[in-house]
C-alpha cells in the first residue's frame, strides 16, 4: 500500500497490468520518453521498452485506427488521447469502427482496446483543454465509458477496463490528478465496471455525479447537513456505460428527491439520461423536480472558468431547491 495521487495510480495501474500481461501496449503522443504531458505514462518506455510503450505521429485517427488493428489481432492496446478535446479526429474510428466491430462481424472480430484521456476543466485550459465529452460516447452503443473519481478506483477501474473484452473510453478527471492522495494497494486488483459507489449515505435527497464533480457534490452534501441537518446520498456513477440502473432507481425510490450533476454542458448531456430514466421508471416516487447542475450550454471559457464549472454552492442551491419543493 502506498499513498498515491490519481495520476500516480493510473501510472501504477498501467505498470501493474503491463507486468502481468505482455499483450498490453501503450501508444499515443508523447507517452514515450516524456511520459505523457501529465506524466501518466512516466517511465513505462524505460521499464518495458519501446515495443510496449511508444510515441506516435500527431494523428488521433491513426492512434485509434492502429489501436483497433492491434486489438483485433490479440493485443490489448491502451491508447492515450492527450486531451479529450483532441479525440474528435478519431471520432469516426471510435464510433463507426471500435464500437461496431463485434456487432457487424457477428463476434468474429472484437476490439479489446482502452482509450485513456484526461477530461474536464480546472487548469485554465479554455475551449480545447477542458471539455467533458462523455455524452457523445455514452450515446454510442458498443462503447463502455468509465470515469474514476479516486486514486483507488482509477487503478482498479483502469485494470478492469484494459481486461475488458470490449472498447472502453476511460476518462480521467484532470482536475483530480493531483488533488489528493489515497491508499492504493500494490499489484493487481479490479473494480467492477457496472457498479456505482455510494460516497455518502442519506435518505433525504440523492445526488448523482461522477469524476471531478464527486468532491464538489460531497462538499455540498456536507454543507446541507450543516445548514439543514438533511442527509444527502452522493452517488458516484463511475461507469457511465454500462450503468447500474437498478441502484440509481432504488436511490430515487429511497430518497424521493434527486439532483444530477456534471461538468459537461447540460443540453443533451449525460445527466439528461439519468433524469429521463427517473421520469420514465420511478416518477411515482419523485416528490420534487429532478434538477440538473451542469456546465452552461456554451463552449468552455478560459478566464471565467471558475464561474462556468459547477461548484459546491451551485450544487447546494439545487439540493436546497429540491428539498424545499
Amino acid at each position, binding site marked *: 500500500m502506498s499513498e498515491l495521487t490519481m495520476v500516480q495510480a493510473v501510472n501504477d495501474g498501467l505498470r501493474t497490468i503491463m507486468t502481468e500481461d505482455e499483450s498490453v501496449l501503450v501508444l499515443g503522443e508523447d507517452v514515450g520518453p516524456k511520459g505523457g504531458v501529465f506524466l501518466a505514462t512516466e517511465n513505462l518506455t524505460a521499464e518495458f521498452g519501446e515495443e510496449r510503450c511508444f510515441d506516435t*505521429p500527431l494523428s488521433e485517427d*491513426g492512434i485509434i485506427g*492502429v489501436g483497433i488493428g492491434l486489438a483485433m489481432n490479440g493485443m490489448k492496446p491502451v491508447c492515450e488521447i492527450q486531451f479529450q478535446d483532441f479525440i474528435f479526429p478519431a471520432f469516426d474510428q471510435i464510433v463507426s469502427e471500435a464500437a461496431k*466491430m463485434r456487432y457487424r*462481424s457477428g463476434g*468474429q472480430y472484437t476490439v479489446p482496446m482502452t482509450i485513456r484521456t484526461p477530461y474536464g476543466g480546472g487548469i485554465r485550459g479554455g475551449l480545447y483543454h477542458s471539455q467533458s465529452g462523455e455524452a457523445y460516447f455514452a450515446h454510442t452503443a*458498443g462503447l463502455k465509458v468509465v470515469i474514476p473519481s479516486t486514486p483507488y478506483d482509477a487503478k482498479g477501474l483502469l485494470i478492469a477496463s484494459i481486461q475488458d473484452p470490449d472498447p472502453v473510453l476511460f476518462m480521467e478527471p484532470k482536475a483530480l490528478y493531483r488533488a489528493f492522495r489515497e491508499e492504493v494497494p500494490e499489484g493487481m486488483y479490479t473494480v467492477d465496471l457496472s457498479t456505482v459507489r455510494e460516497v455518502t449515505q442519506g435518505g433525504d435527497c440523492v445526488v448523482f455525479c461522477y469524476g471531478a464533480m464527486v468532491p464538489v457534490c460531497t462538499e455540498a452534501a456536507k454543507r446541507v447537513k450543516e445548514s439543514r441537518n438533511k442527509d444527502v446520498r452522493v452517488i458516484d456513477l463511475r461507469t457511465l456505460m454500462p450503468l447500474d440502473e437498478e441502484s440509481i432507481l432504488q436511490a430515487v425510490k429511497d430518497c424521493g428527491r434527486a439532483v444530477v450533476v456534471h461538468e459537461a454542458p447540460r443540453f443533451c448531456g449525460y445527466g439528461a439520461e439519468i433524469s429521463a430514466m427517473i421520469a420514465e421508471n420511478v416518477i411515482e416516487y419523485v416528490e420534487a423536480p429532478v434538477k440538473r447542475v451542469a456546465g452552461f450550454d456554451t463552449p468552455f471559457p478560459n478566464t471565467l472558468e471558475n464561474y462556468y464549472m459547477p461548484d459546491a454552492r451551485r450544487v447546494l442551491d439545487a439540493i436546497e431547491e429540491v428539498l424545499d419543493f
Partner: protein
Amino acid sequence: MSDPLQIIDVEGNLTGTAPELDNSTLIQMYTAIVRTRAFDSRCMNLQRTGKIGFSVPNRGVEATSVGAAAAMDASKDWFAPHYRDFGMLFYNDVPAEAMFDNMFGNSDDTAVGRQMPVHFSFTEPLKWLSISSPRGTQIPQAVGVSLAARKRGEDAIALTTFGDGSTSTLGFHSGMNFAGVMKAPTVFLCQNNQWAISCPSSSQTASESYAIKGEAYGVPSCIVDGNDVLAVYVAMKEAVDRARAGDGPTLIEAITFRLGGHSTSDDPTKYVPAEELEKAESEEPLKRFRAYLINEGVLTDESADKIREEADAEMLAGARAAEAKARPVLGTIFTDVWQEQPAHLKQQMEYCIKHYSERDEAVDENGEFPL
C-alpha cells in the same frame, strides 16, 4: 513514376517476364476471376429481380483482387479489404453460398444480417476483416493488425485495399504515415478504377498518380496494370516479401476500370463517357488472361468454358441455397453489442420479442437503396 508494370497485354501476349507459377496456381487464378464474374452477374440478376437490395459490381476489377490474393499466404496473413474485392474470396475458395448468405442477410450470414450486402466478414478460410462502409477506416487498422503480428514475432503480414477515392480519406493518411514510421509489414493496394461513384480522378487529386502518394510517407510504391493479373501478382509478391522480411510497407497502385455502375443503384451512363467505357471494355482482364492461358497451353477453349459453366452452376446453387434460409432471429438485434449483454439491452430484447411475436400486423419491408 515509370509506366505501369505489364506482363500480358490486352490481346493476351506476353510483354514482360512471366512469374514462375505452376499451372494449378494459374488455373486457380483464372477460376477465381471467372467465379467472381459469375457471382457478380448473379448478384446483378438477384438485385434486378428484387431478391436482394444491393450489390457492388466487380466487373473489370477482378484481376487486381485475384492477383493480390495469389501473392498472400492466407494461412497466416490478414486482409483488410475494399468492398470491391470479391476475387480475393474466390481465390481462397470461400464457398459462394457463404457469400450469398451475406447478400441475403440471412441467418447463416457471418454478419448476422446486420450489414448491407457485400460487407463480408470471415475468419475462415482467411482472415478477412469485416468490411465497413465508411471509406478508409480499414487502412490504419491493417497497420495495427500487422504490427501486432510483428510484436509477437510472427512473420504474418497485412494487406489493405481501397479505391482511388479512398486515398482522400483520413484513414489513408494516418495508415500510410504510421506504417512508414513504424516500418509496419503492411501492403497498401489502391484499386484505381478511375471513379469514386461519379467523381473521376481529376476531382480526387492533382497528384501525378496515386502511387506517388507513397513519397509523402517514405513508403516505396509502384504502378501496375490492374487488368493484368500476372503484373498485379508480381508487384504484390515483391511487396509481400519485403513486408515479411521486415523491410516495411509498400504502396501499389493498380490501374483498372469500373465497367459497371458504382453499385446497383447507380446509373453510370450519366457521367462515364461512352468512349472511355468502350476502351476500358476492350482492356478488361478476363479475356486477355484466358487468351494467354490458352496460348500457353494451360487451358483449352473447352476447359475454359467448363470453368465458366461450373462457376455459373455454383452461383445459381449458392444463391438458391442462401435465398431459402430464414432471416436471423429477432434476438440477434441485441447480441454482440458487447460481449456481455447489459441489463438495459436485456430489457429491450425482451420487449422487442414480446412486442413483435404478439402481433400479427404486417411489417413493411420496402425501401430502396440509392447507392
